[in-house]
């Protein structure tokens, strides 16, 4: 029996690799810069083979100095380059925090629009991989809190393939959070589309409704999207709409509000700790905008306000299907 060949199934790591490859092909000014990204291909192999194909001047192994990497990326950007830098793990971006927050985020504004910072800062983030300290953090709120930065996070291989190219093409700096525990999840990826043509692909700064439902809206992103889709499937009689926020700065409140006006209930889910997190912002804005549509208070399912715990405790820290459904039950019973 003949079947139309679907698009090939690839891992998110491979989809990112393909996306980076296309970005390097598209624009000779695009550079990759980071620790162990060349011959090793990155500790997660996301840049595998790119140095071999594009050379050591386009895919550059950096010294062990995160502030140095981002600081020099700023100079490269001023010189007309489009640097894509890799922070090896979430917990190692902090030495570069000053350069990101004080400089990358502000130079366009300070130069009154004369200097652009088209820098993409790739950060594998999140837990669930049994790692040691500093390798499982979710620091996205720090960056979403900083004016001048855009923050993106893909949740599946197709989104990764498209949004990494959109992030690189953006003239604004983008902090690009890659959900490391989903690196090896597979999904079909259509590589025939042009990610930079908004007639072919969705606007990266809009949230995506991945599953429609009528009782509860779940807003989530990155690694939690799969968890929430599984929860929606397992939810029995309750009809759940799942929204992948994807862009954490700017947040697409229109899509969330449109959904909540239909369902009347909102649960926000993220791995990051709770206080002053993305969920707090979503809850505040949706409470304001959808006050009269809400049947229950907006609820958050998040990591706790503790340092990311040692790996033997991480299953208690990370929101899982049960915790998501527990909150769904609560907003339904309210």
């Amino acid at each position: 029996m003949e079947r139309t060949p679907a698009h090939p199934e690839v891992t998110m790591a491979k989809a990112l690799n393909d996306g980076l490859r296309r970005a390097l092909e598209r624009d000779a000014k695009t550079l990759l810069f980071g620790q162990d990204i060349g011959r090793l291909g990155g500790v997660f192999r996301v840049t595998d083979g790119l140095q071999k194909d594009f050379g050591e001047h386009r895919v550059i192994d950096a010294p062990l100095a995160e502030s140095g990497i981002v600081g020099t990326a700023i100079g490269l950007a001023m010189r007309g380059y489009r640097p894509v830098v890799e922070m090896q793990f979430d917990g190692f971006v902090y030495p570069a925090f000053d350069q990101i927050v004080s400089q990358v985020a502000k130079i366009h504004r300070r130069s009154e629009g004369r200097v652009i910072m088209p820098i993409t800062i790739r950060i594998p983030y999140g837990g669930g991989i049994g790692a040691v300290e500093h390798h499982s953090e979710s620091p996205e709120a720090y960056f979403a809190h900083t004016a001048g930065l855009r923050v993106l996070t893909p949740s599946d291989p197709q989104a990764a393939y498209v949004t990494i190219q959109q992030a690189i093409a953006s003239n604004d700096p983008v902090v690009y959070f890659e959900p490391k525990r989903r690196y090896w999840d597979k999904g079909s990826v259509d590589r025939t589309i042009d990610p930079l043509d908004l007639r072919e692909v969705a606007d990266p700064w809009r949230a995506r409704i991945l599953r429609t439902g009528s009782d509860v809206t779940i807003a989530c992103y990155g690694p939690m999207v799969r968890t929430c889709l599984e929860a929606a499937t397992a939810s029995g009689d309750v009809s759940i709409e799942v929204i992948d926020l994807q862009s954490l700065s700017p947040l697409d409140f229109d899509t969330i509000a449109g959904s909540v006006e239909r369902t009347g209930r909102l649960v926000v889910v993220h791995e990051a700790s709770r206080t002053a997190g993305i969920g707090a912002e979503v809850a505040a804005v949706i409470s304001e905008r959808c006050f009269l549509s809400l049947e229950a208070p907006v609820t958050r399912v998040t990591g706790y306000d503790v340092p990311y715990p040692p790996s033997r405790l991480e299953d208690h820290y990370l929101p899982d299907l049960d915790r998501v459904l527990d909150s769904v039950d609560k907003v339904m019973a309210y």
Partner: protein
Amino acid sequence: MDESGRNGSAVQLLTPEGERVTHPTYDISLTDHELRGLYRDMALVRRLDAEATALQRQGELGLWASCLGQEAAQVGSAHAMGTSDFAFPTYREHGVTWVRGVPALDILAMLRGVTNGGWDPNAHRCSLSTIVIGNQALHAVGYAMGITFDGADAAAIAYFGDGATAQGDVNESFVLATVFNAPVVFFCQNNQWAISQPRERQSRIPIFERAAGFGFPGVQVDGNDVLAVMAVTRAALARARGGEGPTLIEAYTYRMAAHTTSDDPTRYRMASELEVWRLRDPIERLKVFLARQGIADRHFFDSIDDEGDLLADEIRVGVRSMPEPPAEAMFDNVYCEPHPLLEGQRASVIDYLASFVDPVGR
């Protein structure tokens, strides 16, 4: 200087063939008992390392960063410390923590994933291992500044790798140490690799030469020669305690294993390198020396092997039976003062877990 950044003047007191040689500046005189003690610690640390690697393979540890090949650098430098000195290790310094008296199972607890610490830094005068590259170099300098302010007779020693020398924190620690004339020793184990990056990616000159630019002495030592390492570190610590300020020691050595158990070094380095370094093995050369001098005999070496077997048993059994922390342990010690928000979260976790108990099946 050869290509790999080695200066011919690296201090050596014991050749790879186990021959005792002299050096114009550095010497050390140790009792037979002390010499055997160095051997014992290096051999046991190697055994601990091998057991931990095996346990990781069996899924009992989340990760292991091996110190294979670096035993002389670690054990030798730690033996140079006095009890009032304070060590600031990285994730690879199992030989240092061992010599500071941290029990084997406490060294493994963090890698088992039951804690993010493992021991009492004050009890062992050895800080917790630092994973974020370079951070601890500044802590050592601050600790050393405190020693000066207190007028105490002690020093701090900061451990870090060749890769770390690129990091801002390490360079800032050099500045602060020299400006405040802090009693600190910077002990850099140049094991030639920072994951896949060779030493040349971090420094264009031999690492010990960096110190001159900051205004304090740097010395390169054969990092696989435990006697030379101990002699050089002793001198640097004495200098620090004597008010003469910091020293940078570059222990020239080699990371014989993968970066960690997650790493695949065949992707970036030649197996032939390993062959060269195997001939410079730090334990073998001390063994040859001890045997040849009649300081230790077969009986002694066998007894250390037996002790290693016991240690390995203790580790295998102990790791598997390490108590699992309860879920609420994640809320412990986040703050010293009471914190209502966290107490609320702790209570909610306890309630939530209790809700899973099936009342019918009781």
